[in-house]
C-alpha cells in the first residue's frame, strides 16, 4: 500500500460541489443576455420614446455597422489575437469604392465590381497580416497596428486629402433603400452574422479556431495547422471589414477617414461585453451580437434622454464599467487572473 490517495468518494455517484460549479458556469453564460434583458426593460421604463416601433427600427439600423465590425474581430479574439487595423482597412475599402465606382474624382465607373475589388483587397490585407504574424512571430497587436497605419496612409494618398463623393446609386441604395422599415445593410449584417455563426459552430475549421485559442501547442499536437488557421481567420476578418467599409461608404457617400475613426475599441468592448474572453478560446458570434445590442441601446438611450453631448462619452464609460462589475459577480471567489 504505497499509494495514499485512496479515494473515499470513488463510488460516490454525484459530486454536489462540482455540480454547483457547473451550474454556476452555465448561468454565467447567460449573464450578458440577462443584462441585455434588464437593460431593455430599464430603457423602456425611463424613456417613453424607447419602446416605439420607430425607435426599435432605429436600433436595428444603428446596430448594423457596429455588428459587422465586431463580427470581424470575434474570430480574431477567439484565437487569442487582436485586430487594431479595423479603421485603416475600412477606410481603404471605402476609398477604393469611392474611386472605382461612379464618383466626382476619377473616370472609373465599375459599379458593383468596385465593391468586390475593395472587399478582395481588404481580404488580402487580412491575409498579409496573418502571413506576417505567423512567419515573423510578431504579436498581432503590433502587426495590425502597423497595418492600420499603412492602410490609413494608403487611403489618404489615394484620395489625396480631398475625399471623393460617391454617386453610384446602386451602391448607395443599400443605405438609402429600406426593406420592412430598415436599410438593406441591416440584412447584410444579418447575413454576415449567419455565415460567421455557421463557420464558428458547424465546421471543423470552427473547432480549430477554438482549439488554437485555448492552447496552441495542444492544437498543433493534434495535427492542426495552426499557422493556416491564423491566416484564414485574419483573411476572413479582412473580408468582413471590407464589407463594413462598403456599408460605411454607402452611408456617408464620402470616403473621409474621419467617418471610420474610433471603431476598433468599441468593437472590442462589445465583444468582451458579450462574454468572449480576450485571452482566446471562449465566446463566439452570438455573444458579440448581445454585446453590440447592449452598446447600441446605451448610445440610443443617451440620445433619447437628450444627454448633453459633452457628458455622453463619460456617461457611456461609467455605464459600461457598471455593467462589467455586475457581470463580474459570478467570478467572485475564483482565482481569476486578469491582465
Amino acid at each position, binding site marked *: *500500500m*504505497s*499509494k*495514499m*490517495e*485512496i*479515494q*473515499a*468518494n*470513488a463510488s460516490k455517484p454525484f459530486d454536489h*460541489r*462540482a455540480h454547483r460549479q*457547473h451550474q454556476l*458556469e452555465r448561468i454565467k453564460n447567460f449573464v450578458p443576455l440577462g443584462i441585455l434583458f434588464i437593460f431593455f426593460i430599464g430603457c423602456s421604463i425611463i424613456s417613453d420614446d424607447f419602446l416605439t416601433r420607430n425607435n426599435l427600427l432605429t436600433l436595428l439600423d444603428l446596430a448594423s455597422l457596429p455588428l459587422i465590425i465586431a463580427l470581424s474581430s470575434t474570430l480574431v479574439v477567439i484565437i487569442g489575437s487582436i485586430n487594431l487595423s479595423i479603421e485603416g482597412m475600412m477606410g481603404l475599402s471605402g476609398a477604393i469604392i469611392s474611386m472605382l465606382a461612379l464618383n466626382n474624382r476619377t473616370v472609373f465607373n465599375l459599379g458593383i465590381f468596385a465593391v468586390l475589388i475593395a472587399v478582395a483587397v481588404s481580404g488580402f490585407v487580412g491575409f498579409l497580416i496573418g502571413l506576417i504574424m505567423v512567419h515573423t512571430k510578431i504579436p498581432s497587436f503590433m502587426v495590425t497596428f502597423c497595418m492600420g497605419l499603412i492602410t490609413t496612409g494608403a487611403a489618404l494618398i489615394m484620395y489625396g486629402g480631398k475625399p471623393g463623393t460617391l454617386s453610384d446609386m446602386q451602391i448607395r441604395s443599400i443605405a438609402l433603400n429600406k426593406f420592412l422599415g430598415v436599410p438593406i445593410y441591416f440584412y447584410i449584417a444579418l447575413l454576415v452574422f449567419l455565415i460567421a455563426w*455557421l463557420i464558428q459552430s*458547424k*465546421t*471543423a*475549421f470552427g*473547432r*480549430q479556431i*477554438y*482549439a488554437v485559442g*485555448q*492552447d496552441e*501547442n*495542444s*492544437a498543433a*499536437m*493534434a*495535427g*492542426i495547422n495552426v499557422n493556416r488557421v491564423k491566416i484564414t481567420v485574419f483573411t476572413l476578418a479582412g473580408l468582413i471589414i471590407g464589407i463594413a467599409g462598403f456599408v460605411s461608404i454607402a452611408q456617408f457617400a464620402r470616403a473621409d477617414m474621419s467617418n471610420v475613426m474610433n471603431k476598433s475599441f468599441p468593437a472590442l468592448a462589445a465583444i468582451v461585453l458579450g462574454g468572449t474572453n480576450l485571452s482566446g*478560446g*471562449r465566446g463566439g458570434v452570438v455573444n458579440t451580437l448581445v454585446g453590440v445590442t447592449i452598446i447600441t441601446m446605451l448610445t440610443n438611450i443617451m440620445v433619447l434622454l437628450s444627454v448633453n453631448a459633452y457628458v455622453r462619452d463619460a456617461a457611456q464609460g461609467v455605464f459600461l464599467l457598471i455593467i462589467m462589475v455586475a457581470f463580474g459577480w459570478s467570478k467572485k471567489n475564483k*482565482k481569476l487572473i486578469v491582465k
Partner: protein
Amino acid sequence: MSDAAAYPLMRLKKINKTYGTTKVLTDMDIDIPKGKIVGLVGENGAGKTTLMKIIMGLEKADSGTMLKTNAPYAPIGSVKANAMGVGMVFQEQSLLPYLTVGQNIYLNNEGQFKTGPFVSWSKLNASAQALLDSFGMNHIKANKYVSDYSFANRQMVEIIRAFFVITHANQNGSAENSLLILDEPTSVLNENEIKVLFKNVRRITDAGNSAIFVSHRLDEVLELCDMIYVLKDGKKVCVLDKAEATQDILYSKMVGTSASEEYYQVSKQRTPDEEVLLEVKDLCLSGFFQNVSFKLHKGEVLSILGSVGSGKEHVCNVLTGVDSLTSGEFMVVGKPVSFKMPSQALAHGIMQIPANRRIEAQFDILSIRDNIIISELERVKKGGLIQKKKVEADVGHWIERLHIKCRDSAQMINNLSGGNAQKVIFARALASGASVIILNHPTRGVDVGAKAEIYEVIRDATHAGVGIVLLADTMEECIGLSNRILVMRDGTVQKEFGAEPNAKPEQVELIKYMV
C-alpha cells in the same frame, strides 16, 4: 503478415543523442515486442524523455536506426508518428477544456462526419460515445465539455484519443501494430482509476498493439509491465522480465544503491522546540472541513494524512490564505490572524510550496535567480531598488546549499530537470525567511536521487528552526519524515500519531483511520 510477426513491433538500434556537450543517449538498443507492455524506468536525466521524443519524431537521433515491424521508421513530428501508428499521452494534458469530449477525441479527424463543409456534431459525439463505452467509460459523456470532468477522467479521454488517432491513422488500416507511449499517466490518479487505466491499456495491447509505460512508481511498473528496461545516465543498464523483477532490484539498478530506511534520514530527525509557531483551534471551512485543531512547533514536521477529499488540502489553503476560514481561531506565534490572500500569510512567515509546481509555482520564463528571489523582494531592496550584490550572494548561497545543478543563476528555470526545479522552489521558500513552510507533495514527479536531496533540505530546514506542515506524496514518505501525523477523513481529524524515530507508526494503523 507472417513476416511482420517475426519482428518486434518497434526496434531501436544504437540510438545516440547529444545535446551540446552532454551525451544523453549512448548506443541505446530497445525492442518492443508486439502485444507487450514495456516499462521504462530510470532517474530523471536517465534519458527516458529524450528516448520517447525520438520515437515520437519530436527529436532527431544523432545516429542509430528505428524499425517498425522491420520497416524503416523515421517520423518527423508527432503528426507523422501518429500516421505511422505511434502515439503518446503526455504528462501535461493536451485536451482542450472548452471543447466537448467528442470534439477533443476527433479533433482534426472530423472528416467522416462531414457533409460538405459542415460537421454533424451529433453524429461525431455519438461515435465518440461508442468509443468511450467500449472502454467502459460510459459515465463520460461525449457531448459534455472536457472541463466538466475530473483530471482522472480526462486522462482516460486523453488515452482514448491517442488510441483512436494511432489506430485510425495507421497505414495498415488495421487496429493492430500500434504503439502507445504513456508518460507518467498515473501521477494524479487514485487506486481505482489506476486499475481502470491498466485494464484499458491491457485491452489495447491484447488486440495486437504495444505500449511503453514510464512511471516513477516502481510498484505500478511491476504490476503492469511484461518487461522492464532500466536506464541510467543515457545507457541501458539491463532489461528484466516481469518474473525476475522486484522493487529492490529495480532500485539498485537505477541508483546503484538499494533504498534503505536511511533514505528518509530518520537519524537526522530532531526533537521540536517547545515554542509554538502556529496554532489552530476548531478551524472550519464550510463544505470542506470542521473543528481542526493542532499546534506546530519550531523545528517540527507535522504531516496531515488523508485521502483525496478528506479536507487536508483545504486546511493548507486556509493556513496560506488561499481560502479564508469560516470560523475558528488561527494564531501565529500567539497572535490571532485571518488571511484573505497568500501575501498576508507570507507577511506572517507562512509559505506554501504548491503541489502543481509547473502551474502554481514556477515562472517558466524567468531565470533561476528571479525564481528564487521573487518572494524575498521586500528584503533585498533598498530605497525601492533591488540590490544586485545582495541578490547574487543570496542566490549563490541557496544554489550551493541545495546543490541545484545549473550553469549559473541566470539560466532559465524551465531548462532544469524536475528535481532541480523543485529545489529552486524550495530555495524560494527558504530565502523568503518563512518560519512555517507548507509542503504540498514536495516530491511529486521527482526521481529517486533528487528525492533524497529534497529530504535532506527538509531536515536542514527543521534544524534551522522552520516548522513544516507536510502533505506527503506516499505513505512511506509521510511516516519517514514526520514528527507527528494527523489523520483526516471527511473533513475532520480522526487521530493523531506520534512518529518519533524509534516509534514510527505502521501503515496499516494509519490506513484504518483514513478510510
